[in-house]
């Protein structure tokens, strides 16, 4: 009983870390541009796939493979910004959504050609031997996942709190027009947020692939879970994204542990629809919500 509980908790923590990283990427782009990026999951896929080649097949050391993977994925993210973000053109929300869906297909299709249609993984960073803890078997990789996520989120907090670029990016997310009047180069900040968002997804892919494996088409579902987590936490809120990611994973892990693993997606997506309807700001979201009819949002 305790063992089941611990096992579910540990798996929720590691999967939740991945969702949190994806949700952070989603929220970051949304905060600076109001774009929901359907190609977010492709960064996770790319991170995993590039590591499969560099670390798994070419046996590069981690300290060389990880930075190169990050650089490539970040460049892809910046390229995506060039197609999806077109200031000054009156493009509708629907157009941009469809552009990111197209980009997602293009990236995953390219990955299908560079690699293949098989499912891939690479060896965990520190072996497969499980550690026994309170009766549960913990794979060492899950410690890597949680640890690295904590480091990345911590670095992100420091970046937004104390660095001038982080503050500039935050200013853009609050009011793009005012930020540009204060001399902040908004397009550079948007470019940076796409790059950073891609890097976050890539980290998720790098640490998760040894546990969950990856194939070229896996990105879309991860992106959807990322949005759901971000919306659960409140779109545009960084703390919310992390909390949302973890909550979402706990919901999944405990549904599969205590109800049935086949219904985990059913439960989580029913919860998401309800969150959208009854708590459109999410847990930590901003005061105003664009997704809702004004008169439907209570207290406005």
């Amino acid at each position: 009983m305790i063992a089941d509980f611990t096992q579910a908790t540990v798996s929720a923590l590691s999967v939740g870390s991945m969702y949190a990283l994806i949700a952070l990427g989603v929220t970051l782009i949304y905060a600076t541009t109001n774009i929901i990026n359907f190609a977010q999951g492709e960064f996770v896929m790319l991170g995993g796939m590039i590591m499969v080649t560099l670390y798994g097949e070419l046996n590069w050391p981690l300290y060389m493979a990880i930075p190169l993977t990050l650089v490539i994925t970040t460049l892809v993210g910046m390229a995506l910004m060039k197609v999806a973000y077109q200031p000054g053109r009156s493009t509708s929300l629907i157009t941009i959504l469809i552009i990111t869906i197209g980009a997602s297909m293009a990236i995953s299709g390219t990955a299908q050609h560079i690699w293949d249609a098989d499912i891939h993984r690479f060896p965990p960073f520190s072996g497969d031997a499980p550690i026994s803890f309170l009766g549960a078997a913990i794979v060492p990789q899950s410690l890597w996942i949680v640890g690295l996520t904590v480091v990345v989120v911590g670095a992100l907090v420091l970046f937004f709190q104390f660095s001038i670029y982080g503050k500039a990016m935050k200013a853009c997310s609050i009011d793009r027009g005012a930020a540009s009047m204060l001399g902040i180069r908004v397009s550079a900040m948007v470019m940076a947020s796409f790059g950073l968002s891609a890097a976050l997804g890539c980290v998720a892919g790098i640490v998760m692939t040894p546990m969950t494996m990856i194939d070229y088409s896996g990105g879309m579902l991860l992106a959807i879970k990322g949005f759901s987590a971000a919306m659960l936490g409140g779109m545009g809120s960084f703390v919310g994204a992390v909390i949302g990611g973890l909550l979402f994973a706990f919901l999944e892990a405990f549904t599969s542990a205590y109800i049935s693993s086949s219904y985990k997606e059913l439960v989580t997506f029913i919860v998401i629809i309800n969150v959208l309807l009854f708590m459109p700001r999410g847990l930590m979201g901003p005061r105003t919500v664009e997704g809702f009819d004004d008169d439907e949002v209570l207290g406005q």
Partner: protein
Amino acid sequence: MFDTYMKDMNRLVWLPVSAGVLALPLLLGDGYYLNVLNFIALYSMIAIGLCLLIGYCGQLSISHSAFFAIGAYSSAILSLRFGFHPFVAILISQLISAVLALGIGSVVLRLKGHYLAIATLSFTIIVEVIIVEAAWVTGGLQGLSGIPPLSLGSMELDTDLGVYYVVWPVLLLLLLFALNLIDSRFGRVIKGIRENEDVMRLFGVGVYGYKVKVFVLSSVYASIAGSLYAHFIGFVSPSAASLSFAIDIIMVLAFGGFNLIWGAMLGAAAITYLTEYLTDFADFKRVAFGVALVVVMIIFPSGLLPGLQRWLKAGRRAPTGAQR
């Protein structure tokens, strides 16, 4: 001026096109091309319904593959397990879909923009999971096979030719209905909702009610296609409810134009032709369609066909019915 011109044009073009479509097999005889044309008809039905919802009403929904699957599965289950006549099964299925669409629509249409897209997307995933998991009634991952073909009396319409004379007339009627609808008061109201909801509300329009009606209508279009598909192919699988199928139909609109009903048919024809005849192309389908979708949406946000049309007529004032 343009609107009335279009209205007459639509009806003027519809008659000869219908006559041509119905005469085609008589002129060209039986053949594999009929099979492809049947698929084009089915895709066009979904695309026309989606065109009304996305293009004319401005609500991005990603739930049409779910309703396609609901139509296909309810028709299959009713005729397989309860022994209903296929045509009766199809009619009951539309009722089921309409009721479901009313329920889902009146819940999710309180949302807008991204939120609506994600909510309808979640619904699609839920439907797919239920179809896979409720194996005792849906057959699970194996799907359902041996669905009886459409039949008239003792004559079974199990050939491509027989099905052709069911799906195309149905498509033509649905097409005429959609063409008339967008020129009616209802059509003008939903176009207004697309342009500016708040203004429509000031005019005293019950915006929410109209959105729900369009959603139900569009879902039933997808569901009719699904039911016909089930009896035409004789087999349904959970991939009918998949997200990639939903994206395929959005692609049809990107080619044919988001607010051009005729374009939906041409887009469906283009996509079906590309996937059907260019088999060498199959490997590159994902990349090519993805890149094409991005390029089309950047250059012609209202779709390839209307975009090219306007580009060719450059210099003339943009038609009033066209969006940005």
